[in-house]
């Protein structure tokens, strides 16, 4: 399965020091009322992507995340289970998976299919597979956003992510504009439906000439001090495009592995 990246947008809290809400209000003239951090994040990435590439009304929107919106769950939990009050109306709405999709669709003026989906460990890979099937069938283009927010509730995130307490966690917002057509593409992404065993991965790695990048979950070496965010694969795609560099990205779940071949085209 080959998909082509036409444009990207990136944000990482450890690389860029901005107030996202303020940026949306001042630069993009977005009404920030009744929204919260996860929606702001989604909007920032999407609006930055729109600056890079024209967007069509029928474009489809897929969002993924490691764990979705933990901040709003913490807020709702506080109202209901701790203070025994009712949930605030807009907090309830903002808690729903596809609320962020709605605000992004409105901001980009798109009306195509809009999906919020996750998959443990393989969230980038499996949503990408689903996007490929949709592109093949529906012949549209896809805006693919990967959003991880950790800084609002870092300890809660660390408890559900299967990582050490000392691991640094960051916020990350990565977008790609995807198509099956190669014209003007920045990069080719190749995945397959197969899960590899560890032995098969060893054999692939031995033969591979390009750089190999492992997800933090696969790379257990003590030297690995890079920060954690679940949609790391999405960042690697954008980073490789920026550096005009090819790589093989490897993700794992228990004893199953997946491979993403990233080939830059410019």
């Amino acid at each position: 399965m080959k998909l082509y990246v036409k444009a990207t947008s990136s944000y990482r809290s450890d690389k860029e020091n901005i107030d996202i809400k303020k940026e949306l209000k001042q630069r993009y003239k977005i009404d920030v009322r009744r929204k919260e951090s996860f929606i702001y994040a989604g909007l920032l990435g999407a609006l930055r992507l729109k600056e890079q590439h024209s967007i069509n009304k029928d474009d489809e929107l897929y969002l993924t995340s490691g764990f979705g919106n933990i901040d709003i769950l913490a807020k709702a939990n506080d109202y209901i289970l701790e203070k025994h009050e009712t949930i605030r109306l807009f907090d309830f709405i903002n808690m729903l998976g596809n609320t962020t999709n709605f605000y992004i669709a409105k901001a980009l003026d798109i009306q195509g299919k809009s999906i919020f989906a996750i998959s443990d460990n393989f969230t980038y890979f499996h949503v990408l597979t689903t996007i490929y099937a949709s592109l093949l069938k529906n012949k549209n283009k896809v805006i693919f956003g990967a959003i991880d927010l950790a800084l609002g509730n870092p300890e809660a995130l660390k408890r559900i992510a299967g990582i050490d307490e000392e691991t640094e966690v960051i916020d990350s917002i990565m977008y790609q504009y995807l198509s099956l057509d190669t014209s003007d593409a920045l990069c080719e992404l190749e995945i397959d439906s197969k899960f590899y065993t560890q032995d098969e991965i060893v054999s692939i790695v031995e033969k591979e000439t390009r750089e190999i990048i492992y997800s933090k979950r696969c790379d257990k070496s003590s030297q690995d001090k890079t920060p954690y965010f679940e949609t790391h694969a999405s960042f690697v795609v954008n980073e490789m495009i920026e550096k005009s560099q090819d790589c093989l990205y490897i993700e794992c779940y228990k004893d199953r592995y997946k491979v993403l071949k990233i080939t830059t085209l410019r």
Partner: protein
Amino acid sequence: MANILNTCIRSSSGDLKSSIENIKQSTFNISTKTVAAIEGKVEVPYYTFPKNIKDTQDGIYAALKDVVGELLENLSKEDKTQTAIIIGTSIVDWHIINAVETSNYPYKRQPFYSKKRSIDSYAKDLSDAFNLNGFTLTINTACTSSVNAILEASNLIDTGIYKYVVVIGLEIFSDMMSSGFYAMQLLNSDTIKPFDKEREGTILGEAISAILLGDDDKSPWKIKGGHSNCNALSITAASEDGTEFVEMMHKALELSNTSATQITAIKTHATGTYANDISEINAIKKVFDNSITFTALKPYVGHTIGACGALEIALFMACIDDGFLPKTLNHSKAILKDYVPLLEHLNCTSGTFMFNFFGFGGNNTSLILQREDR
């Protein structure tokens, strides 16, 4: 092309057989739940699981395992290795709530322990338990979650990526979701009255519904096509004239190579809320003439939010397999006098059927299925 090969459910009425028996007899099982409200704790009607399904993490997983086991009983070992799982739900996992609580409240503090877990972990566990392919996905688009899962599953099959996909609609009682629906004044009724002038709101429900899709041609149920869009007047409602729903139905018909006159009946979303039902009936009027047959299933099983797609499709299919189109309960005063839902069960064994679902966040999805003549 993807076909629906098998279905298996657990609703407030029990399994598929007992649920269909209840529909035939025009009865339903309703209980109550306590919900957080401004005025304190309030009791609201709720279509809860029968007592044999425990409202715990282990209880729900056991029920999921039963349902998926039953669904896959005729699939070979080889076929299972080519089977993916997609869950459609609006709920979040207990594990995340526990992590939030132990992190934020000193009196609930526990020593640090980290385990990867999300709502998708149910799909991963099921995939491992039944030796399936390992591909899992969990879609959360509110009330359209599981019907969107069906559309995504049919894409994966139609493009040859997977041979089979299990779609699971899952919804269990949640304090947060119920409190949210109550805060929106949507739970003010003790009956769901679809398309009725005196409708006052909806009643939520619990459900697990699993649907097996595959490229196997033996099934009489074919997926002709469908369409999902993201378009609404506001985050919680479409335009009263139903413009967004009209567009969705037209596109679904076009993508299925079906004309409006070829539709035998519509399974409507029909939550019994003011906003949904008026937009939906106005949209139906714009796409179909008044001879169209349409019905609603939520009065039998409640509004099961993320599960309603998979649940209501499974129930509707079982009714047709049993030889009848199910009538709409609790309807007496039509919003539009020429557009009255089906008020008596009607003999029907085949046809082309439209299934409509609408969700908060502007998600509108229409699926068209065909049941071949026997």
